[in-house]
């Protein structure tokens, strides 16, 4: 298994990795995005996948183009090293969208693939909360298919505690808070998360 610099915080991560980043405010989000993607813009052999609810990936791309400190984002996009995709209400399709985007770049020989997605919760057009949690958990298995560093970003000022605790903390082996990368002692592996967490959600037990 190879390792690669995370970019956002000090230290390397294994490839593949699934990481939760908790941020406060748009400035911190955009700093994280630029820091994470910059190595891929500097290294022609790396790829980038941006994803989120409809419109989010395009917004990320525009922000990158305006703040990537001289890197040529348009050229990377034109060279097919950046892929944009959307999350979906059908969470099975959502997993597939994310995986397909990464596999497409991997087939071009790009390593690692830096994947950056913003988490939403209980909003129209997005997966229902329990399905979203399932998606986050199952991504730990799915990500093993591609040489990717997957960073899911959680807005701690907007998302409810349920999303943060169950989704952010318990479904990611690694967490970045305040720019510090940490292993996560509260991680619950997918084979336990379904029975011990998801099926215990109160609205599924009525």
């Amino acid at each position: 298994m190879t390792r690669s610099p995370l970019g956002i915080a000090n230290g390397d991560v294994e490839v593949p990795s699934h990481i939760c980043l908790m941020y406060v405010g748009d400035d911190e989000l955009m700093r994280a995005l630029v820091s994470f993607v910059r190595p891929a813009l500097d290294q022609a052999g790396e790829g980038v996948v941006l994803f989120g609810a409809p419109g989010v990936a395009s917004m990320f791309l525009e922000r990158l183009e305006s703040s990537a400190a001289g890197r040529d984002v348009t050229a990377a996009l034109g060279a097919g090293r950046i892929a944009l995709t959307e999350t979906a209400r059908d969470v099975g399709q959502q997993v597939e969208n994310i995986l397909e985007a990464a596999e497409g770049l991997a087939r071009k020989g790009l390593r690692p693939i830096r994947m950056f997605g913003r988490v939403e919760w209980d909003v129209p057009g997005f997966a229902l909360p329990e399905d979203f949690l399932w998606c986050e958990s199952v991504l730990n298995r799915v990500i093993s298919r591609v040489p990717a560093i997957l960073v899911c970003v959680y807005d701690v000022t907007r998302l409810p505690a349920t999303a943060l605790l169950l989704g952010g903390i318990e479904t990611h082996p690694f967490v970045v808070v305040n720019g510090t990368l940490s292993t996560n002692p509260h991680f619950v592996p997918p084979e336990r998360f379904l029975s011990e967490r998801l099926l215990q959600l109160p609205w599924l037990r009525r």
Partner: protein
Amino acid sequence: MAASLPVVGSQGLPEAAMNSLRDGVALVSGAGEVTWANAAWLAHGERPTADAILGARVGTNLLDGQLAASTSGARAIAHAVKAVVERQIAHCELEYLPPGDDRRFVVSALPLAAAEAGAVITIHESTARTEEYQRTAPAARVAIPQAAESLTPREAEILTLLARGMDNRSIAEELKISYSTVRGHVRSLIDKFGARSRLEAVALAYRGGLVAAR
């Protein structure tokens, strides 16, 4: 790489993240003491009403009846939290309506995932969507035996794999069928259970004994 998350009290939750959260979050130790609470939780504690859990402050023992003005609602919440801390139940969620307040709050408790005894309690205002979801979901469901009888053998097979937490691609590979075929079967399953999500279909299947816990 750092070895663990920033420490909050005796637990390992990220303090900066919890302090930034608009929801009230508190940690309860195995002994029932609130060992840490974020600013939003403390703001709840400063509300005019001393009623129920919203009056709890850091250091208050939630579990032995020492709440300032314990009501039946407060006791219900305290008992539920106690049951979570002692791992008699996996999770609790109770709606709380403070006297003289139009808002509704949802108080929930989750046991800590780590080996250390204790729980995380959260308080947030309930949303209209949550209420709508809870109100309409049961009526939309189909009786489990009826749903079970309507399943094709392939759908039953896929339901079993879904209950193992498998994604559509993995199911397709396991059964040697296409991804789109699996997707169609999953959608059909959800419809037959009258469920809103794949997880709700799996939960109903568990409850009806159609699949077994692994």
